[in-house]
């Protein structure tokens, strides 16, 4: 209830504005590129508290905030929320359930993380970051995992609302209230209804503002536009839209209110826009009420609006991730319809052309491809890479069966959309908290090799599995690894579930819940399990690094006996100092994942299925099963800083591999081999999403024939069972130039595991990481 009152107050009082040339109205904050600070969650508060007095002055990408605003934030807002956030509630429950036995990072370890940081991230760390490290520690049961204070990560149910209008939805809610609910259920429903009222009030405020501007406007063309905006906002979202223009206004208003209601870090996807908007588009074009030019302009404007998003993150992490574009709002186009027929339409193509034309945006754009997709459509999708590294490609023929395995009906599975980076759920009926809960596989390996400890901690974090030097076979090592992985996944599942309980008990989002199919019917907020489908997620990172390390141990220690386990551990501890020769054996003479080499790929298959088994064995309070995934949204670089050297020859401090991609510098057999390696995994089981990132040089896309060949490369990969692939089309030379002359490359975009970022905005380690990913030029030239 308080959430709906807060939303009401915000929407009734926040400043509204309409910018010159804007055709769709609605702003989430008083600034174009602003954040709605989710102070009630807590992790963000810690960052803000840490940075108050510093937001404007921090060395890397400072924020614009006035002294008075900063004072209000520190003295009133953050102080009020102290002890009352999700983070606080989560921490209390974790302590009760003994997830924390002790502070696991001693000051020395904190210092070493910061020092590792200082070495690599010169200029981005301060002594204050040490205290932030304490917050990090408190927010996660272990340093090799993170359980962020977020849920979010869902597809807003635009498709459920757009044909009804919020007025009709409110009537449904009132009808549901009349059915005699228990008090709690009734309160949930009333909060939903109130959030609808607030939204309509907000739309009407915008309408009045538009009319006011129209009255003052001298230019007759713009005057007419403003009047149209006024008329649109008077009609939608209260009523169902009557044409494409109103539909776009409807979509954006609902999205904006959703974003305001949740705050940044929402990762609210808009779903299959080309599907639910198509009837409006068809009708408006056919009866001539909208010109194709206006339709295209509206699509571009929507994509630009979606691209304005960011999350405030600490400088130390900033160097390994990007704020801009981090709060992405994924758009999905293409794929099959609910009956399994090709659903690509004119609007799908317009969205693709629009994203290609915009070029410079922080959009997350997902294109679904299925066996029967028209070749023209696939080639058009690949063609976008000529101008931007934008879109990610998804395989219907793998994702749909994986969703059916999760318990979706065939129809709902076919109706999936992408959330955040790569996570699929059905559109508008699911609460699956698809991200924010990750575990480092390379960290688990370190626990295995150090018998339950990490190099940077003194305390035991995981059970004793015996000193590795006592292992007589590779299987014993694998078994120990499985024990540590299982222990830590248990810990995570418990921790996540306790966090979700905190949410369900007091951190509702009535507005977004109202959009999700099931919540009204069940009279439950989405955080309580109101949605038709409920899942939780655990995501793995550092996959290839771990596979390669295990493969190197099997070959060098157990098969060829080039060194003993004891020697290996000593060398790793010394970070290979004085052992270049052995390090090279590990990095150059051992099998690697991504080369279509069973010497590594069989371990990959084992690791993938072991992880999926362990994650899927858990269920949560919302009657949700846990879904496993493999992606890393840039966090793999931070991982590298925390962990010591690994047996694949990776030195301490270097990043681990991202997502399911081969480790840096190991893709020597080209893209077909990497795709074959990934294709060997039982991809259907990692239904929370997995990603393969690849680089292509621009010359491969410069001709029709080249586009066709890349299209066939992708289609073949999908026929092998791959779920997702995305390309960075750049040359390493260009990137090095960009490092030297960032001013000249402000528009250079790359994708880091799923989300798009401006290259020059990324910290140096991520830049270096991208550069060192092997370049797939054509080998035949």
């Amino acid at each position, binding site marked *: 209830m308080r959430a709906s009152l807060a939303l009401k107050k915000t929407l009734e009082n926040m400043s509204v504005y309409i910018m010159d040339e804007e055709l769709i109205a609605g702003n989430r904050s008083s600034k174009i590129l602003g954040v709605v600070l989710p102070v009630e969650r807590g992790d963000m508060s810690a960052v803000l508290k840490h940075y108050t007095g510093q937001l404007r002055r921090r060395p890397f990408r400072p924020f614009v905030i006035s002294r008075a605003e900063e004072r209000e934030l520190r003295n009133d807002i953050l102080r009020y929320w102290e002890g009352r956030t999700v983070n606080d509630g989560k921490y209390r429950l974790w302590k009760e359930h003994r997830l924390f036995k002790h502070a696991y990072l001693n000051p020395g370890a904190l210092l070493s993380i910061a020092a590792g940081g200082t070495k690599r991230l010169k200029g981005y760390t301060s002594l204050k970051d040490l205290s932030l490290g304490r917050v990090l520690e408190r927010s996660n049961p272990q340093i090799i995992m993170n359980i962020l204070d977020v849920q979010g990560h869902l597809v807003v149910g635009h498709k459920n609302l757009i044909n009804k209008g919020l007025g009709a939805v409110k009537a449904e809610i009132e009808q549901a209230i009349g059915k005699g609910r228990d008090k709690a259920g009734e309160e949930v429903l009333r909060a939903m209804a109130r959030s609808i009222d607030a939204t309509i009030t907000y739309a009407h405020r915008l309408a009045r503002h538009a009319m006011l501007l129209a009255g003052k406007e001298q230019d007759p063309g713009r005057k007419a536009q403003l009047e149209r905006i006024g008329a649109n906002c008077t009609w939608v979202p209260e009523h169902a839209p009557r044409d494409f223009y109103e539909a776009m206004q409807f979509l954006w208003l609902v999205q904006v209110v959703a974003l305001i209601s949740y705050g940044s870090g929402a990762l609210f996807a808009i779903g299959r826009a080309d599907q639910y908007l198509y009837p409006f588009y068809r009708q408006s074009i056919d009866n001539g009420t909208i010109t194709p030019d206006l339709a295209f302009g509206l699509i571009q404007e929507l994509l630009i609006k979606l691209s304005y998003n960011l999350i405030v993150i600490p400088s130390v992490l900033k160097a390994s991730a990007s704020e801009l574009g981090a709060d992405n709002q994924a758009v999905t186009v293409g794929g099959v319809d609910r009956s399994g027929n090709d659903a690509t339409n004119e609007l799908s193509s317009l969205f693709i052309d629009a994203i290609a034309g915009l070029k410079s945006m922080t959009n997350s754009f997902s294109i679904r491809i299925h066996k029967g997709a028209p070749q023209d459509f696939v080639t058009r999708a690949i063609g976008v890479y000529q101008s931007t590294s934008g879109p990610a490609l998804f395989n219907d023929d793998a994702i749909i069966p994986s969703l059916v395995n999760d318990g979706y009906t065939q129809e709902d599975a076919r109706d999936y959309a992408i959330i955040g980076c790569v996570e699929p759920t059905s559109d508008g009926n699911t609460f699956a908290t698809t991200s924010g809960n990750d575990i480092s596989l390379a960290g688990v390996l370190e626990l295995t090799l150090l018998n339950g400890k990490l190099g940077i901690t003194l305390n035991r974090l995981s059970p004793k599995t015996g000193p590795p030097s006592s292992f007589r076979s590779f299987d014993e090592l694998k078994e120990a690894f499985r024990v540590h992985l299982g222990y830590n996944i248990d810990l995570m599942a418990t921790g996540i579930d306790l966090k979700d309980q905190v949410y369900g008990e007091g951190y509702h989002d009535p507005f977004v819940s109202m959009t999700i199919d099931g919540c009204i019917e069940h009279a439950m907020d989405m955080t309580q399990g109101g949605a038709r489908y409920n899942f939780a997620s655990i995501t793995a990172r550092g996959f290839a690094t771990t596979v390669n390390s295990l493969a190197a141990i099997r070959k060098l220690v157990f098969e060829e006996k080039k060194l003993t386990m004891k020697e290996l551990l000593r060398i790793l501890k010394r970070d290979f100092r004085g052992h*270049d020769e052995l390090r090279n054996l590990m990095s150059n003479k051992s099998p690697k994942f991504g080369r279509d080499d069973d010497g590594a790929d069989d371990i990959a298959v084992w690791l993938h299925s072991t992880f999926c088994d362990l994650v899927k064995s858990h269920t949560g309070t919302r009657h949700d099963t846990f879904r496993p995934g493999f992606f890393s949204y840039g966090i793999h670089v931070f991982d590298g800083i925390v962990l010591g050297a690994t047996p694949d020859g990776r030195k301490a401090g270097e990043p681990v591999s991202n997502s399911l991609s081969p480790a840096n510098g190991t893709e020597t057999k080209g893209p*077909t081999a990497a795709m074959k390696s990934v294709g060997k995994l039982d991809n259907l089981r990692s239904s929370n999403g997995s990603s393969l990132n690849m680089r292509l040089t621009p*010359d491969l896309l410069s001709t029709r*024939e*080249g586009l066709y*060949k890349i299209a066939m490369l992708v289609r*073949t990969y999908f*026929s092998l069972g791959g779920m997702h692939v995305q390309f960075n089309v750049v040359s390493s030379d260009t990137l090095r130039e960009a490092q030297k002359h960032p001013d000249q490359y402000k528009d250079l975009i790359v994708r880091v595991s799923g989300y798009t970022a401006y290259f020059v905005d990324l910290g140096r380690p991520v830049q270096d990481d991208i550069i060192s990913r092997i370049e797939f030029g*054509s080998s035949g030239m």
Partner: protein
Amino acid sequence: MRRDEVYRTGSSALVFDIQRFSLHDGPGIRTVVFFKGCPLRCMWCQNPESIHPYREIGFYETICMYRGRCAVVCERRAIFTGSPGRIDRETCNGCGRCVEACPSNALKSVGTYYDEETLFAEVLKDRPFFESSSGGVTFSGGEPTLQHRFLKGFVQRCRSAHIHTVMETCGYFNFAVVKDALSGIDMFLYDLKAIDAGLHTRYTGRGNGVIIQNLERLRSAGANVVIRMPLVPGYSDSPENINAVMDVLNRLGVRTIHLLPYHPMGESKIKPIASSQPYLGLPVLSESKLEEVAATFRKAGIDTVLSGWM
């Protein structure tokens, strides 16, 4: 000339590289198998490591860590850690023990023997990509026809597995001897370097009479032949040579030529194998020159293709 027994009998193929996802060496997505050994000595050779029909060891001095493992394991005592270039090429038989022992990959085997089974398995790896993109396998070199005994069976094997085959050839071979190996090939990429016999001999060490004859033989046997011309600045790109090539094409009734602009990338491979190939120090063939040559061909009614199948 030095050749191993297996090379002579053709029981195994001597291959110096296998490249998957090749896009310029024929239609579709292809795997290119580079056969080692070549009868020509083109001054501008892009693959100097392809010349000798025996295994060699490449030595990359800049990444050597000077551990001396190589010298210890060498049974023929062909390695002297103190000497520049490291390897006594006369004594070395390319066995590869040193490569195995080298921890830093400063030594690389140039030339690996593959029996039919192993090579076929390697080719099959990308079969799904061949099938979807109408690609296949390309035999390149070196000069693949030098290993016609091996190829004869191998090509038939690809054929019966419905794998599309392309052969890149310099055309210098004894047609009668190798024709069985050629009969199953789906497409030939056939190089014409210089038409004047004297120039050809100067540039490549051999005359071109056989080459032009073989071209006619292949065409009259009904083979699918694509003619390619390497454009090497100051060597093969003279107006006289281009006119002469045009005359040959006209005489044979060929209406398309693929132009391959020179790139000096291959020169970096000369030193590691201590090849005697000269450093030409030539620049990349300029875009404008390439356009100019293409225009000349087009004016004569011959289509030009500039970047292979891309």
